[in-house]
């Protein structure tokens, strides 16, 4: 409604000839002084914490961009972050997206919305409003719908598993001297976990000559992990793929593994996603239990990000830089790049710039380039493998980004 009133006012004032020049010049002067970028993430409810970390990343990037002189193609215009809360449900996320496109009419691009299902709902709105949006969500579905205004910076869930498996096998082989043959999959039934487990079951394991001997799906939150761990103990797989989304489930299983004498790397444990490497883990699980646990994530603070990691620690008291911080940091730089290329603060032009962008190797996302294919997926998007070492999850793969050497738990 505010938009409606202001256009009416403008129209009426334009008729009053004398002031029209003033308004027009102000409108012209306003444009380059500030460019608004949206960040639609959960900052309330059960996903508030990852959303807040995304906000940290975005704020740091905006400060750095502005300190370097803003958007040069727009006469040094400063970037301004508009944060919207996607809440904790799909409906709230959709409402927030509608609010974003209706009330922040001058946004040129946005980033969001953490959870895949939120991103799916949000992009239904942004697509119709021609607002380009960058996302770190994994779901393949996001860029499978033929949408033109969504850009996925992470490797998709399917692609991550495909990339990770050969690396894990190689890692195990070089560290322990023998190639793993059997695996167990323990997964919860959330969308991202199910997608990863599905691609492993349907071909990936076979491609890597791995045999699936235990396959269990559970519904979070787990009440008791005993029966799951017993199955693993009796089957003795060479690798355990453990895909939790809820921290309490991760804690329960790791503790039970330890109790049964399988912990601390007796059976190498590999996870997918960020849950098992969140700072919150340390509040409930001791670092000894976590030592050696690996997880495959789309992005992580890595080599070349040392200064950023230090700044994040100092400014926001975060113990390390997760995917949420570094990816969102990168999103702002990509949007800046697109604005430079578009040469005007216009969402359609920015989207077009993103589509045709070819800005060379990626600095803030792992591997690949700052370039998007026809689906909106980042070309060559890689992923990182992170390992818990002395109470900190550090990037150990790929080698060019690794901050530490991986070690394979001795069995």
């Amino acid at each position, binding site marked *: 409604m505010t938009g*409606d009133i202001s256009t009416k006012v403008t129209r009426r004032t334009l008729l009053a000839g004398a002031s029209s020049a003033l308004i027009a010049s102000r409108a012209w002067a306003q444009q380059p002084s500030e460019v608004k970028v949206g960040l639609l993430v959960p900052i309330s409810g059960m996903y508030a914490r990852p959303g807040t970390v995304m906000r940290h990343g975005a704020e740091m990037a905006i400060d750095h961009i502005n300190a370097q002189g803003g958007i040069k193609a727009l006469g040094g215009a400063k970037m301004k972050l508009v944060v919207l809360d996607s809440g904790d449900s799909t409906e709230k996320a959709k*409402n927030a997206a509608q609010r974003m496109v209706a009330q922040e009419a001058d946004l040129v691009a946005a980033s969001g919305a953490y959870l895949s299902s939120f991103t799916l709902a949000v992009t239904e709105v942004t697509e*119709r409003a021609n607002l380009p949006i960058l996302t770190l969500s994994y779901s393949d579905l996001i860029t499978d719908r033929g949408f033109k205004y969504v850009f996925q910076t992470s490797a998709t869930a399917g692609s991550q598993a495909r990339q990770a498996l050969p690396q894990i096998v190689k890692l195990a082989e070089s560290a322990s001297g023998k190639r793993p043959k059997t695996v167990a999959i323990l997964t919860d*039934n959330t969308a991202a976990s199910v997608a990863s487990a599905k691609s492993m079951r349907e071909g990936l394991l076979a491609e890597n000559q791995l045999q699936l001997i235990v396959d269990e799906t559970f519904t979070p939150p787990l009440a008791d992990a005993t029966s799951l761990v017993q199955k693993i103990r009796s089957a003795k797989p060479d690798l355990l793929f453990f895909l939790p989304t809820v921290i309490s489930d991760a804690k329960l299983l790791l503790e039970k593994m330890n109790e049964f004498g399988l912990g601390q790397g007796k059976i190498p444990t590999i996870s997918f996603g960020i849950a098992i490497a969140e700072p919150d883990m340390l509040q409930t699980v001791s670092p000894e239990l976590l030592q050696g646990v690996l997880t495959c994530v789309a992005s992580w603070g890595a080599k070349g990000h040392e200064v950023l990691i230090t700044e994040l620690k100092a400014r926001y008291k975060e113990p390390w830089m997760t995917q949420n911080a570094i990816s969102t940091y990168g999103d702002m730089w990509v949007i800046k790049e697109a604005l430079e290329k578009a040469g005007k603060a216009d969402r359609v032009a920015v989207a077009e710039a993103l589509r045709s962008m070819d800005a060379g190797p990626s600095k803030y996302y792992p591997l690949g380039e700052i370039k998007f294919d026809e689906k909106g997926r980042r070309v060559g998007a890689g992923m990182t493998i992170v390992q818990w070492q002395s109470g900190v999850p550090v990037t150990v793969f790929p080698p060019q980004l690794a901050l530490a050497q991986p070690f394979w738990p001795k069995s």
Partner: protein
Amino acid sequence: MHKFRSLLPAVLFTMAYALVSLSVTNSYYQLVLTLVPVWAVFGLSWNLLSGYTGLISFGHAAFFGIGAYTTALGQIYFDLSPWLLIPVAAMLGGIAGLLIGFPTFRLQGHYFALAMLAYPLAILYVFEWLGFQEVTLPMKRDAPIAYMQFGDPRIYTLLALTIMLATIVLTRIIEQSRFGMALLAIKQNEAAAEAAGINTLAWKLRAITLSGAIAAAIGAFYAQVLLVVTPQSVFGMLVSAQALTVAMFGGVGTVWGPVIGSVILIPLAETLHAEAGARFPGIQGVIFGFAIICVILVAPEGLFWKLRDLLRKRFARATTTEVTAAPHTEQPGTAIVTPLPVARKRATSEVVLEVRNLSRSFGGLKAVQNVSFKLHKNEILGIIGPNGAGKTTLFNLLNGFLRPDQGEVLIDGRNMSGERPHTICEAGIGRTFQVMRPFLRMSILDNVVVGAYVRAKTEDEARKLAADAVARVGLSDVADRVAGELSTKELRLMELARALAGQPRILLLDETLAGLGHGEADEVVAVIQQLARDGITIAIIEHTMQAMVRLVDSFVVLDHGAVITEGEPEVVTRDNRVIEAYLGKKWVAHAPH
């Protein structure tokens, strides 16, 4: 005509809402405007079952989710249009209602509520297991209208409003028909409703089927608005809670409740989320919850009833001053019926009800053992006995609440033992209850109409029968007053009228004189005598003998579940066994012989 007038506010409200929404061009406000009628309809569907029958459903998300997934999967896998899928969803929702209702209606009260809670949660896991964690509706750029994907968001609001108006009209029609009356009767006292000839299971199944269909239809539409369906967003606990919240906040058991609740709560939650939440993330939930708690404390039955009561009170105060100014000439109540000592038709030898060797035990307790007696046409039979003698159990066996372990109940020579109460009521047996359960907010006439449906084919006929019955007990003057304002005596008479409205040939009266003062009891006795004169056969339970001696033709005396004696009042009251049962052995010696 009356029906159309009662719909006028709904039509006006919908039109005003449509006008407002047409003038809103901001797509975000428009989305909120769309969601208000969506949740209102969901609340209305919940209200149709839980508001009217009082059987609280914590699981309406089951229907909502089925609807949502119908539109989503129907479009993805079969490329069907939502215009077709929404009616299909309604059908599936109705079937789900029937399937869920049939086993679950065996449970009552909290058990029903908890069982309902389980359905959406169970279905949620099924959909997760099937791999439908995230489903998006395909975008149809070439045929947006055929697939209900409008560029102009106002059309969604208009569609939602259409569904809402249709639901309101449907609810109003139900409210004013025997359907609504039956549901209300179930809410007050399911047993009494069954005894009044209402087939409670059939009506409850109809209610849950309709309710499920409406919930599924609106769930289907919701998916179309949200475009993304996840098990949590349509089967989740919060979805079921949403229906309860809007209905309970606005008012339960009225068509306006869910609408009021939705109109206030949905925009409030969204505004808080947008405004307060931006400054203090999370505060919106605290304020929202606090607001709901405050309203529930002040208006436990919902805003609608609170406002209505306030308005009534103000209106009543304005009118009572006028009334008291005029001289009080006429005493309302039973003044017309005066006890007549005139001899009535004596009981004939024709047997209308015969009980043969009736027995029923609860575990080791033999509540009724081997009871036999005959009820003759036009007779008033008093069944007496000390507390715990098995009198009410006997009545429950007679009208079908309990199945006898053995024995027969013959009505006009036909064995009816073991039949459902509403069937026995149809056969011509009416009954009242020891504990009165009037519908406090309804007028006397409306209270009585419930009992008339067993005989009446049309609404008008039911009204006529009810008015008749009210006249027979002498309550015509106060027929329009709400039951909550009545005295115990008037309530007893109203109960009697409700039983009479079904035109029974035999009336079973359970302690109709209990709790009445001396003069009041006489008035009620007079009414009962008049009924007997009009040809109704009556069996009455009482444990005090005084009033009974003047009323009845003969007594059956029960003690410890068995008949100890029967016969004329003068004989029975002198019987040693009766005195012993009532007063104990040592009093027998003092009894006058």
